[in-house]
C-alpha cells in the first residue's frame, strides 16, 4: 500500500495535521501567526546550509528553525516590539537562505521544492520522520496541555498558580521549530504557516472549548490534505498549494455559519 506515492502523500499530510491542529490552535490563540512565518522562512536558510555542509535537510532545517525560535523568544523579552523582531529576522533569514542557495551549484533548480514542498515525492523514510516528529509534538502538547492552556489564557494568572509561563512558551516554540522542520518537504517553507493557521481558524467557527477547536483543526487539516491531493491529480496543479487552497476554501465556507461561541 505504501508503494503508492499518492497513499504516502496522503498519510504524510494527515500525520502532519496531528501536530498542526493543536499547535496551530495555540498559534492562533497567542497571536503567533507571524512567528510561524519567521521560523518557516528561516528553514530555507537551513535547507541551503544542509546542502552546503552535506548534512540531512531535516537536521539542518531543525537546527536553524530552533535557533530562530530561541532568538525570537529571547529578543521579544527585551523591549523590542515582537512584530519588528520577527520582520527583521524572518526576511533576513529568507534573504540569506536564498543567497546561500544560489551559491550552491545544483540546488537552484530544486529551490521551489523547498519553498512549496513536494508532497508527492515523499519517501517511506520521509513518512517515518513526519509521523515521528508530529507524534512527538502532539505528545509534548498533550503532556503540557493544562499548563500551556492556563498560560495562554493569562500568563500572570498561571504564574500566581505556581506555573512558569516561560517554560510553557519554550515548549511551544520548540514544538513549532520541530513541526516546521518535518513539514518542509510536504508543504514547504512558504505554506507551512498557512497549514498551521487556516484549519485552526476554520475550527474556531464551530468550537466551544479549546479542545474541540484543536481536534477540529486536525480534522479540517486532514480533509484539506485529501481534497488538495485529489484536486492536484484532477487538475494537474501543484500539490502543496492545492492543499492550502482547499484549507482556504473550507475556511471561506465556514464563514457562512454563525460562530457558535
Amino acid at each position, binding site marked *: 500500500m505504501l508503494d503508492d506515492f499518492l497513499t504516502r502523500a496522503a498519510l504524510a499530510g494527515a500525520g502532519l495535521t496531528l501536530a498542526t491542529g493543536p499547535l496551530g490552535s495555540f498559534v*492562533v*490563540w497567542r*497571536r503567533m501567526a507571524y512567528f510561524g512565518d519567521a521560523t518557516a522562512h528561516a528553514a530555507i536558510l537551513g535547507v541551503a546550509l544542509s546542502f552546503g555542509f552535506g548534512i540531512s535537510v531535516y537536521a539542518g532545517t531543525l537546527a536553524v528553525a530552533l535557533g530562530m525560535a530561541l532568538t525570537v523568544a529571547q529578543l521579544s523579552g527585551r523591549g523590542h516590539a515582537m512584530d519588528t523582531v520577527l520582520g527583521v529576522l524572518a526576511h533576513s533569514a529568507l534573504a540569506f537562505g536564498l543567497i546561500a542557495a544560489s551559491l550552491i551549484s545544483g540546488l537552484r533548480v530544486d529551490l521551489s521544492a523547498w519553498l512549496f514542498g513536494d508532497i508527492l515525492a515523499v519517501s517511506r523514510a520521509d513518512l517515518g520522520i513526519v509521523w515521528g516528529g508530529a507524534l512527538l509534538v502532539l505528545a509534548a502538547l498533550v503532556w503540557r496541555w*493544562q*499548563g500551556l*492552556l*492556563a498560560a*495562554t*489564557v*493569562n500568563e*500572570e*494568572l*498561571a*504564574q*500566581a*498558580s*505556581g*506555573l512558569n509561563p516561560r517554560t510553557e512558551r519554550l515548549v511551544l516554540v520548540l514544538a513549532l521549530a520541530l513541526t516546521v522542520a518535518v513539514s518542509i518537504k510536504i508543504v514547504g517553507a512558504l505554506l507551512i504557516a498557512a497549514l498551521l493557521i487556516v484549519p485552526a481558524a476554520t475550527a*474556531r467557527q464551530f*468550537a*466551544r*472549548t*479549546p*479542545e*474541540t*477547536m484543536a481536534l477540529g483543526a486536525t480534522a479540517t487539516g486532514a480533509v484539506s490534505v485529501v481534497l488538495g491531493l485529489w484536486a492536484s491529480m484532477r487538475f494537474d496543479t501543484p500539490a502543496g498549494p492545492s492543499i492550502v487552497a482547499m484549507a482556504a476554501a473550507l475556511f471561506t465556507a465556514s464563514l457562512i455559519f454563525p460562530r*457558535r*461561541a
Partner: protein
Amino acid sequence: MTQPSEALISATNLSVTHGGAPVLSGVDFTIAPGEIVTVVGPNGSGKSTLIRALIGLEPAATGQVTRQPGLVIGYVPQKLHLDASLPMTVGRFLSLPKRVRDADAAAALVRTGVPGLEGRQITRLSGGQFQRVLLARALLARPQILILDEPTQGLDQPGTAAFYKLIEEVRHETGAAVLMVSHDLHVVMSASDRVICLNGHVCCAGTPRVVSNAPEYRALFGMGTGGAFALYQHVHDHDHDHDEGHGHDPAHPHHAHPQAHGHDHSHTHDCEHDHAG
C-alpha cells in the same frame, strides 16, 4: 511583623522600580493566616505593584519578599482580557490550571452567586459575572490566601457591597487570608482587620478606625474622610447585626495596633511632603 515565621507572605524593605523610576520604596508588609488586609491609596500609589510583587509577578529592586513554601494563592486580577480567538466555557475555565470535578465547579459557582453558568462562553459574561467566575476559580484552588486587585471595578454600589460581603463570608467559611486592593474605601474598610494606606510607601497602617483617623490618611483622601468614617461606622454596625458576633474582630486589633503606631511615627513626614527624597 507579629510573628514573621507564621506569615503567609512578608516583605521587608521592598522597593520596586519601573524603568528606573521608583514605584514602591521601603515597604514592610506581612499578612497572617485568616487575616483580611486592605491596601488603599490614590491612583499611581503602587497598590497593584505591591500585590504583584508579593505574588512574584514583579521583581523586587531591593528588599525581600518571602512566601510560605508551597503557599496556595487564589489570585483575582484587576483585569483579564480573553482573546476572542480562544473558545472557552466557564466550566472549562474553572478547570485551569488544575482539573476540578464538575460538582466542585458547580458548587463554587453557586457559592459566588452565579449558579449554572458552566456552559456559557467567558467572553459573553457581564463584568460582574466574570468577577464572580474569577473568584470561583480562585476558590477552587482551596487557597490559603485570596489576593484581589480592585475586584469590584465596574460593579455598581450594591454589587460592590454584595461582593465584599461574599469575600467576608468566604473568609469565615474557609479561613483563607484575604489581601485586597481597593478604591472603595468606605465599604472595604468595614470588613478589614487591617488597612494599609499606600503612596509609594506605607503612609499609615492599622485597624480601619485608626487609619481613617490618621492625619496621613486624611491628607491623602481629603474632605471625603469624615463622611467615609460615618459610612464605615454604619456598615460596620450592619455587619455585626448580620454576623451575630463571630468574635474575630476583637482578636485582630491587638496585633494591628502596635504596627499602626510604628508607622504613624516613622512616616508622618513622608506622607505630607510627598517623599522628595
